[in-house]
């Protein structure tokens, strides 16, 4: 019996993902739960196990292709009769389910037709998804690409409530009514006249005449990072303030307790939990940094969900520690350890990266002392940590050698002023310099 392997639904709002790697090839035997392929979505990268044991008879998506959720990517024959069972309907459906990159992004050669084609994108793509007449009318009015909206109706049909929620969510992130198709059309037209570069990769070929290049398509994650960064810079007027912190007390404390900590809790004590605790104290003192902007309303969040940026070989991800204020120092450290491990092993679940209310970025790993992080929308502030360096500092009118670092806060000047930022950073500084919390 042949079993269809589907592109899994990895979260409420995820419609597609990039199939990044096949672990098996046609003809290979595979066990149930054995890793079959890897996918990358805008939220997470993860490994997908085979739903059944058998022989892999067909692969229907190439590595690197973007695949719609629930479309068939492979067929496993459970009877073990390797190549005989290849049901026709599935093969037929495959091309539709796996659009080639060329079809998704107009090739440079087709420039003249780009504008015209782009014009019809919104309408055509809106016809291809299940939706109600009312929804199509509202989407046309607001230039919304319905393929980006997830439907809660029968068989995923988009109803009015789905669209209203989508529009509200779009408003909440400050991006206005995101009209991907319409925006793509706009940037394509601009590119054709040779003037501008689109946020997530308008074509710049005209600017590179005579330069030897290699073209590498962005990964799904890269695309999302690019989109998100541009959107954030466009949304929030960023201001960054910096403060210098004497870390000697924290450094000494960690040196003293790190072995005991590891033997007690089973993992290494890093510096990050100290900064997380200091940030939580500062959020308590300056709650506006944990807010969001909704039109002309400020939303103060009652929970603090700390997002910690984790650099990966293949990009960047921000796992979220839910209800951070309710955790002990060890609890924070343990959750961080667990999430960072999951991120590196591609085991993050969609929920692990959702709901952040304030973010921390540690850019000091390579020695950078000051950076200006970009706010993780729809948040309004992000704390950055520079490299720890030994420096001569003045202590009680004498010069001493101390370990110091720079802590920065990039904030959204629409709702946060310099005085708030100053108060935040000084609270971080005071908490770290006068550390009083037991660490084991």
């Amino acid at each position: 019996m042949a079993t269809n392997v589907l592109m899994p639904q990895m979260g409420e709002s995820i419609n597609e993902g990039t199939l990044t790697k096949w672990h098996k090839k046609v003809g290979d035997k595979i066990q149930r739960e054995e890793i079959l392929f890897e996918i990358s979505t805008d939220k997470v990268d993860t490994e997908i196990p085979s739903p059944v044991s058998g022989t892999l008879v067909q692969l229907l998506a190439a590595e690197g292709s973007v695949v719609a959720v629930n479309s068939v990517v492979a067929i496993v024959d459970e009877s073990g009769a390797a190549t005989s069972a290849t049901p026709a309907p599935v093969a037929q459906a495959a091309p539709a389910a796996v659009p080639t990159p060329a079809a998704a992004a107009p090739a440079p050669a087709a420039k003249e037709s780009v504008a015209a084609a782009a014009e019809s994108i919104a309408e055509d793509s809106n016809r291809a998804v299940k939706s109600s007449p009312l929804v199509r009318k509202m989407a046309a009015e607001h230039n919304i690409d319905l393929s980006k909206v997830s439907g809660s109706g029968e068989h995923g049909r988009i109803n009015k409530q789905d669209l209203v929620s989508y529009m509200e969510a779009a408003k909440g992130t400050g991006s206005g009514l995101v009209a991907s198709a319409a925006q793509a059309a706009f940037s394509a037209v601009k590119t054709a006249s040779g003037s501008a570069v689109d946020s997530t990769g308008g074509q710049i070929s005209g600017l590179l005449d005579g330069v030897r290049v290699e073209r590498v398509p962005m990964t799904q994650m890269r695309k999302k990072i690019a989109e998100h960064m541009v959107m954030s810079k466009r949304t929030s007027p960023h201001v960054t303030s910096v403060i210098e912190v004497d870390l000697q007390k924290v450094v000494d404390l960690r040196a003293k307790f790190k072995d005991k900590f590891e033997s007690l809790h089973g993992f290494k004590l890093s510096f990050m939990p100290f900064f997380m605790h200091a940030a939580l104290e500062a959020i308590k003192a300056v709650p506006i940094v944990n807010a969001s902007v909704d039109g002309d309303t400020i939303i103060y969040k009652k929970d603090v969900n700390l997002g910690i940026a984790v650099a990966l070989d293949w990009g960047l991800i921000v796992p979220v520690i839910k209800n951070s204020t309710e955790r002990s120092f060890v609890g924070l450290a343990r959750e961080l350890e667990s999430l960072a491990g999951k991120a590196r092993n591609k085991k993050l679940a969609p929920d692990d990266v959702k709901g952040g209310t304030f973010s921390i970025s540690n850019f000091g790993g390579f020695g950078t002392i000051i950076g200006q992080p970009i706010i993780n929308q729809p948040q309004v502030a992000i704390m950055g940590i520079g490299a720890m360096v030994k420096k001569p500092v003045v202590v009680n009118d004498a010069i001493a050698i101390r370990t110091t670092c720079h802590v920065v806060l990039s904030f959204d000047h629409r709702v946060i002023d310099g005085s708030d930022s100053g108060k935040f950073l000084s609270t971080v500084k005071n908490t770290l310099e006068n550390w009083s919390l037991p660490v084991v």
Partner: protein
Amino acid sequence: MSTSYDLVVIGSGPAGYVAAIHGAQSGLKTALIEKKDWLGGTCLNVGCIPTKAMLHSASMFDKASKLASYGVKIAGADKPGGITLDFPQVNKRKDEIVKHVNGGVAFLMKKNKVDVIRGMGRLAGANTVEVTAADGSKSKIQAKNIILATGSKVRELPHIKIDGKDILSSDHILYIDKVPESLAILGGGVVGSEFASCFGRFGSKVAIFEMSEQLVPTEDFETAAELAKALKKQNVEIFTSVKVKSITAKGGKVEVQVEGETAPRVFEKALISVGRAPVTEDIGLETVGIKADARGFIPVDLKTYKTSAANVYAVGDIIPTPQLAHTASAEAMFAVDVICGKKRTPINYLTNPGAIYTYPEVASIGHREQDLKKEGREYSVGKFPFSAIAKARIEDASDGFVKILTDKKYGEILGVHIVHAKATELIAEFSLGNNLEMTIDELAHTIHPHPTISETILEAAHAAKGHAIHI
């Protein structure tokens, strides 16, 4: 009979028996518990079915006197007393219909292998239902899931005693043996209006006393006015914005004292129809920690119909949603689907049709105009009278109108109000259309058959867009 089930349903009305069938069809081992000796609950036994049977007799009686105008002559019919109402036969026919449909439900239980357990069902702690049989013996049943569908009963007022002889509830008036000369009806809602239309046409002199400022207070104001106009032609006097201080039985008559009047008004019988109260007392809610609200309704999550207790669901008249049989059935099937792990889109109550079986009938869906006005929404009104429709003339049913309220921007259909002899059938077009979120454009571009009553809907759709054809 087993003592352990996947699903136990308490109450066999249109919520309960439908839940039981759908559960059994979905592969659940199902039991249905009913305390009375009937199946089908209020709807089938003392509600929808018998009242509509009586109303149909009223319509036939009404039509009989007009037969000559259609060219149908019955010898002697034009003489005084030539056409008379055989009220015992009205009741007999009604009872036969109820009996027939009752047997149908029993058959469906057997066909679907639902165990019907006779007795009073009560929750008795987690996953347990206790059944008290008629002889007082108690037994316990284990249930993985329980659906409460205990329905509603006639609401009573503290200052008016329903004696079942002269002062009646809807349960009693279905079993009176003669048409009263005069009938006072307290409450001009759905039940009151239907019995007024019924007994008014049977020949009673009827008076409705309604506390709110309009008849059928939950309907659109134009619907209320149209219905009031029609009822007045059926021997029904209507008093709105009145308070009744007392109703007392005295020497075979009933005295109705209206506030602000010097003397009581005297009637042969009185009907108290002031709504229906949920049956949520003495069903063991406390054993699983469910708390009914101040009005006795059980709070549920309308996305799942789950109560606050694990594996206990509640549907129908006992939850604070419209008290309608078809609504109850829809909720019941939804709850079963949730139990079976099926993904369902929550019921949109704005697409839930309301139906009143007066002459003419009233059917509605969505918002009323007075509410849209109050909310300050931008809307258009498309209204078309049946008097301009040929088929309505042919069928001698020209009373009423179709009124469609649409959103100005997108043409979303916000509300529909139909008054007509066949309104409750006509509204189904909007049950479907609104559920699929059609707009006024799709409706206006839908070809309707001619000549029909349903053409009026097309005309009203054109009217909503500002250009009705046949007026």
